[in-house]
C-alpha cells in the first residue's frame, strides 16, 4: 500500500471516529491540530487503525509518534 493510500484510509478513520467530515489530514498534522482528539478518541483511533490495517502497535510505537507522518511510517513497517 502506498503512503498516500494509507493517509486516505487513516483520514477516513478520523472522519468516522471524530464524526467530522471536514477533517483533512496531512503528514504534518499533530494531535493539537485536530479538534476533539482527546485521550479516549485517541484509543478509538488506534483501535480503528489496528483493525483496518490488521496490525498491532506496541504502546511504545504510539508514544513515539509526533505527527501523522510518524504514524504512517509505523504502519508501513508493520
Amino acid at each position, binding site marked *: 500500500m502506498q503512503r498516500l493510500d494509507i493517509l486516505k484510509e487513516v483520514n477516513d478513520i478520523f472522519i468516522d471516529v471524530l464524526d467530522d467530515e471536514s477533517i483533512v489530514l496531512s503528514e504534518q498534522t499533530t494531535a493539537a491540530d485536530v479538534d476533539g482528539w482527546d485521550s479516549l478518541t*485517541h*484509543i478509538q483511533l488506534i*483501535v480503528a487503525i*489496528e483493525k483496518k490495517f490488521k496490525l498491532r502497535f*506496541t504502546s511504545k*510505537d504510539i508514544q513515539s509518534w509526533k505527527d501523522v507522518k510518524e504514524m504512517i511510517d509505523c504502519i508501513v513497517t508493520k
Partner: protein
Amino acid sequence: MLHFYKEDNYNLEFCVTHEVHSQFMNIFKDCNPLHSNIAFAREKGFKSEVMHGNILNGFVSYFIGECLPIKNVIIHSQEIVYKNAVYLDDLLSFDAVVTETFDSVNAVEFKFNFKNAESKVVAKGKIQIGILT
C-alpha cells in the same frame, strides 16, 4: 493481553422478571405502550408487552462490571441490534466472546448475544472496554 485472550468466552443467564421490568420503568420513565399495554402490543403483532431493549444493556453492564476476571475496567463503546422481542419472565442465555485485544491501548473487544429459551437470538452486539491501570 493479561486476563483476556482471543476466544475466551463467558456464559450467563438473565431473567427479565416483573421486578426488573417495573423498576426499569420506575427509574427511566419509559412507559411506552409497547412496554406497558398488552392490547397495544398485540395490535402491533407481539404476543404481549415487549420488554425494553435497554434492559439487556443493563445486563451487559453487569457482565462487564461484575463477571470479568478483573474489576478495573470501563466500557468505551457498545452496540446492540435487537432481533426478536423479549417478553416478561423470559429466561435469556447470554454468550460473550473476546474477539480482539489491543495491547497498545489496553482495550478488549467482545461480541455477545442473548438467546431466549427457544434458542432464538433476541439481540446481539459488541462492546469495547478499556483496562484501567
